[in-house]
């Protein structure tokens, strides 16, 4: 098989980074970041979560090592999610007659 075999060392490294990110997100929630910038707490939390998700997708799920065809399918799923989120939140966000 011509598949690329990811080494256990890399898996452990990714796991370590994921642990650091988990610790960071918990500590960040204990700080009032909203005082600096509106909604900063949730933005930071989502950015960290997305970094974790990207690491899992690229390395645990081997997306980094897969063909362009596979990468496209991976991207498509999240692209469709983006459509659903942006259109629906755009709908709610543009309602001035309702408290959202």
């Amino acid at each position, binding site marked *: 098989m011509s598949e690329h075999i990811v080494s*256990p060392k890399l898996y452990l490294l990714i796991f370590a980074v994921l642990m650091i990110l988990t610790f960071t997100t918990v500590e960040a929630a204990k700080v009032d970041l909203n005082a600096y910038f509106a909604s900063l707490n949730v933005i930071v939390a989502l950015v960290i979560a997305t970094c974790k998700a990207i690491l899992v997708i690229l390395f645990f799920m081997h997306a980094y090592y897969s063909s362009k*065809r596979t990468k496209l399918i991976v991207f498509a799923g999240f692209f469709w999610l983006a459509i659903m989120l942006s259109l*629906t939140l755009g709908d709610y966000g543009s309602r001035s007659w309702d408290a959202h």
Partner: protein
Amino acid sequence: MHRTGELSGQFQTLQQQKESATLGMWIFLSTEILFFGGLFLTYTINRHTYADVFSFSSRTILLKWGAINTVVLIGSSLTMAMSVWSAQVGKKKLVTLFLIATLVLGAVFLGIKGIEYHDKFVEHHVPGLSFDMYYCTNNPGACDLSPADLAKEKVELDELTKKMGGETAVNANSQLFFSLYFGMTGLHALHMIIGAGLLLWLIKQSISGRFTTQYNTPVENVGLYWHFVDIVWIYLFPLLYLIDRH
């Protein structure tokens, strides 16, 4: 692809055959992304509308369990990835060992979820007829809270009641949070239980030595499913547990 990894007639190469399995799994995962995505969307809109209530309700679920579960689940993704690696390098015994490790960590996760659900039941935070955000503060000693924590919760709850204009409003809107909490973590837990079933199926086959360097597609595909369930939790944790911990 019949059960041994030999080339099936409709494929030109083994690599193409293998890739088609991966593609199929990812297409299924796309449907799962949208499935959970709908719930996350509902959560987002309701959290924006009832920010204060969501913030308070989130603080009644224990951070430590969520954090421990995050570590446990990411750890299970590590052991799952190691199981795939073991199959790729032909270490058959390790395949079984890592699959069992993944299953055990998954069971730990579900056990902790059970503890959390039990706590919510005791505190009358399960949506329904007996839902009451004021139960713990009205019945000191009924919930597992230290007197200091209980006093703090009473102060916050009184503020919230004033802001929301009454107990009915607080109860109605916090039921929203807990409906979403149980709905989203419940759906996630259901996926973990299905994953556990898949792992048992894999363990049985790995014991009979079915996964080799030539054929380990089922392990890889269950791995993709398991990692996806991990990713859902990676988003659930900050959104449900870390709204406002300061």
